[in-house]
């Protein structure tokens, strides 16, 4: 029996669509779903005589992302033309960056299931323009929609540092969260804002000898699920192929496969990388980009605390669970809101619970961010404090939160909502202040004890039924006080009275 071990090796090319208002080299709007060929001009149509003008915002977004990826940022870069003929590329060349990318030699930390992180190398990041779309609708012709032509795309290439489908997915998810935090891309998978092309092969150890399978590139994946599954599928397919045929990597033997999402298999597209010669040369219509120190500083000033770092800080500093910290850092607006509420004096764990259990659910319902619900961070801090002091309980906090959202939805009560005493006022209006006065509660407890001799007996006799009976009595007190009794105080009184 042959000794066999294998390891999958994956590197990733990712295209991220930047969320600039206008295209990379002209003033046309970047817009998804518009009438075909309605967001075009002579420049992006590649008409005779037109010239590109660089979108500065796109460049800044790209440099910011490269900084977040810890790339070296050259202060001198240039544009190049990449030539190939395709109907969705009106100039038949794409303006891109070839030998001087705007960022190189970086890395990204990705979270692993074990709770640890792994560092994945970033080979390069460069900016380019997107092509249009060929539409193969019906008949013996195709149509071309050039609305997407010229949309700024940031291409990020990783080192082959990933060793499982799960790791590849983790990187994709982490990158999505990162670019959203930076505000450089909506990273909406449905709209094709992130597209992935993994390069996969295997290192196989057989009888002490290492073999490598040929590299397979899977084209144009646009969901995390397809990305992960295609890598997993390819791992098994390559292993089977090796066991069947013994074929190993040859120079230049890279093949291209596509992902069949229904059958969940990769399908051969090109046996051998066609002798593609893109005939790169420097774009003569654009000046090289020189990043002066002041410009660089200005870009750097838009850097934020990145999501994974922030997630780890929440665990470390606030002792939140990794899960909770992940929930809070899924979106920049949630994390910022959380920080603001904590800053305003809310106890982190309680703030987290309010946001995770009520805020995010509500925001999701309304299809907006937490910050857009109308509840102020100070309100949440206040709610957390009120729970802390026992004046209200968690369920009341939820009621109050929802009440503020309701008030905010009514524009006329806007003024009241911004009142710093909102939480207290609503709590009082809705009678949600807990009764914590031991004297007052004692009288009610006595009454309940008197009314429920059976339960009292179960408690005092100890044994199996005791715990359940205690809960029953507590529930009776809560009912009597319409939920306003502080359960902690009631429990203490019950314990004292019934031993």
């Amino acid at each position, binding site marked *: 029996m042959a000794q066999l071990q294998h390891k999958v090796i994956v590197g990733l090319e990712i295209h991220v669509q930047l969320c600039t208002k206008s295209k990379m080299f002209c003033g046309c709007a970047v817009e998804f779903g518009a009438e075909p060929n309605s967001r075009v001009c*002579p420049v992006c149509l590649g008409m005779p005589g037109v010239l590109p003008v660089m979108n500065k915002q796109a460049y800044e977004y790209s440099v910011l992302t490269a900084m977040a990826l810890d790339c070296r940022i050259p202060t001198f870069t240039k544009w190049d033309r990449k030539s190939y003929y395709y109907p969705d590329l*009106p100039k038949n060349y794409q303006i891109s960056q070839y030998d001087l990318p705007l960022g190189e030699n970086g890395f990204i930390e990705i979270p692993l299931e074990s709770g640890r992180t792994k560092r994945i190398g970033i080979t390069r990041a460069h900016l380019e323009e997107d092509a249009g779309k060929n539409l193969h609708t019906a008949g013996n012709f195709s149509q071309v929609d050039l609305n997407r032509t010229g949309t700024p795309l940031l291409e990020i290439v990783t080192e082959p540092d990933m060793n499982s489908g799960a790791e590849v997915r983790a990187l994709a998810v982490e990158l999505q969260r990162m670019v959203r935090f930076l505000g450089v891309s909506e990273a909406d998978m449905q709209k094709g804002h992130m597209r992935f092309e993994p390069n996969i092969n295997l290192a196989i150890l057989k009888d002490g000898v290492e073999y490598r399978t040929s590299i397979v590139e899977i084209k144009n994946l646009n969901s995390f699920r397809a990305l992960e599954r295609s890598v997993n599928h390819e791992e098994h397919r390559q292993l089977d192929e090796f066991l069947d045929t013994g074929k190993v990597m040859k120079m230049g033997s890279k093949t291209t496969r596509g992902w069949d999402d229904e059958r969940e298999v990769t399908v051969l597209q090109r046996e051998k990388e066609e002798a593609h010669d893109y005939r790169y*040369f420097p774009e003569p219509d654009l000046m090289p980009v020189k990043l002066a120190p002041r410009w660089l500083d200005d870009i750097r000033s838009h850097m934020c605390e990145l999501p994974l770092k922030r997630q780890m800080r929440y665990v470390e500093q606030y002792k939140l669970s990794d899960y909770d910290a992940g929930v809070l850092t899924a979106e920049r607006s949630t994390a910022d809101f959380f920080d603001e509420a904590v800053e305003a004096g809310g106890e982190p764990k309680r703030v987290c619970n309010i946001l995770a259990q009520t805020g995010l659910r509500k925001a999701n319902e309304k299809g907006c961010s937490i910050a857009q619900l109308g509840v102020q961070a100070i309100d949440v801090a206040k709610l957390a404090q009120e729970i802390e002091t026992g004046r209200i309980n968690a369920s009341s906090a939820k009621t109050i939160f929802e009440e503020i959202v309701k008030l905010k939805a009514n524009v006329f009560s806007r003024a009241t909502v911004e009142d710093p005493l909102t939480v207290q006022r609503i709590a009082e209006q809705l009678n949600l202040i807990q009764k914590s006065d031991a004297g007052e509660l004692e009288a009610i407890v006595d009454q309940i004890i008197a009314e429920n001799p059976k339960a009292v007996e179960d408690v005092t006799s100890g044994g199996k039924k005791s715990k359940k009976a205690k809960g029953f009595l507590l529930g009776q007190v809560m009912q009597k006080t319409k939920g306003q009794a502080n359960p902690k105080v009631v429990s203490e009184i019950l314990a004292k009275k019934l031993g």
Partner: protein
Amino acid sequence: MEQLSAKELRDRIAAGQTSSVEATMAVFERIRQFEPTIGAYISTCEEKALEAAADVDKRIVAGEPVGQLAGVPVAVKDNMCTTFGATTCASRILENFHAPYNATVVDKLLAADAVIVGKANMDEFAMGSSTENSGLKQTVNPWDTSRVPGGSSGGAAAAVAGGLCFAALGSDTGGSIRQPASFCGVVGLKPTYGRVSRFGLVAYGSSLDQIGPITQTLADTALVLNVIAGHDPADSTSVNEAMAAACDYLEELEEPVEKLKIAIVPEYTAGADESVQRALSDAIEVYKKLGAEITEIDMPHLDYATAAYYVIATAEASSNLARYDGVHYGHRTQSPKDYVEVYSKSRAEAFGQEVKRRIMLGTYALSSGYYDAYYLKALKVRNLIRGDFTSAFEKYDCIIMPVAPTTAFKIGEKTDDPLQMYLSDIYTIGANLAGIPGISIPCGFDEDNLPVGLQILAPAFGEEKLLRIARMFEKETDWHKRTPPIV
């Protein structure tokens, strides 16, 4: 009327001594008379021109302000986009192409109230030195109709020489303004790269292309340059005003340059025809008499200019012309069997021989494995040539040399020998590679009564001084006053 320069005409129109309509009608009368022989225009727009002329006249009568070229009939080379008429680049692939926008220079002409009379013939996509590569028509030299007008702006130069307009815009990638100006006995300026916006100029060699005036006199050159020069936000390679502001080139034009220091490069220009050499020596004598100091210098890398040029220009062209594929606009082949055939057949059918040759040359030069040996090497040569000019201009105000090694040659004489044709750009290419301004002014005639041009080269953004140096010569001579026999 045709005896007037553009500036003189403008001044007369402004003074009410004549009208733009009158001048425009006269131009179209001459076009009717001579265009069948000369063939300078691919298209004309009489109705639109007369409308524009009438508008200018009306405003002048009303005492309203008008632009610098108010009422002057001008021609535009057919590689500059106009929303009126077709913009063909003299290519069958764009024969019916109507641009949806105006080139910046066209907008500037219109804003200056110039009257555009038509689009001038040229070598297809500006590739050529005789206008014989036009895919649409033949232009002849007004001085001798059996000869070429030069190229690629041959139509524009012939139109100015033949009195079919008062001034024209040409484009110059390797001499395409200066050489036809020399062949046709008119003034042609290639400004510094970046001085005039290229937006709307159909690209041939993007890093070399520059638009400039073709006129009868230096005052006209200055006037037209005043209108078209300046930064354009739509052209990233047009120079920022803060770096090198355009100025009023007419203002100091009559001021001679004191202690003028001129360099000549005898070794480099020794190969020119005897008549050309003689005209050059005469010109040197004129400058000497004006007190200029003449020094012989060596430009060691200029010998490689033509080779470097034909690598860089064709490489850029191969990419610039990739868009003419029959998919989005322009000629499309009938019943292709697949999309690849849309490309291959459309291009094979509609591009001319020279265009195909240059696309192939350029494609080869950029191909993987050859890039370093050709394109990269050519860029290095380009830098060395730039360096030669920079060091020359540290000591000298300008360099003078012939525009071309010959005067206008016979139609068909060089069409079968592309290399010979390429060599007619040998003296003009250096300015494009270095990005510096160069001008061609009439400086004599050969034994066949064909005009000879004098080329003056100046440092980048030195147009103001360059025009003054040229004007010193023009004032002393009357070569520019001669008119072709056909006229």
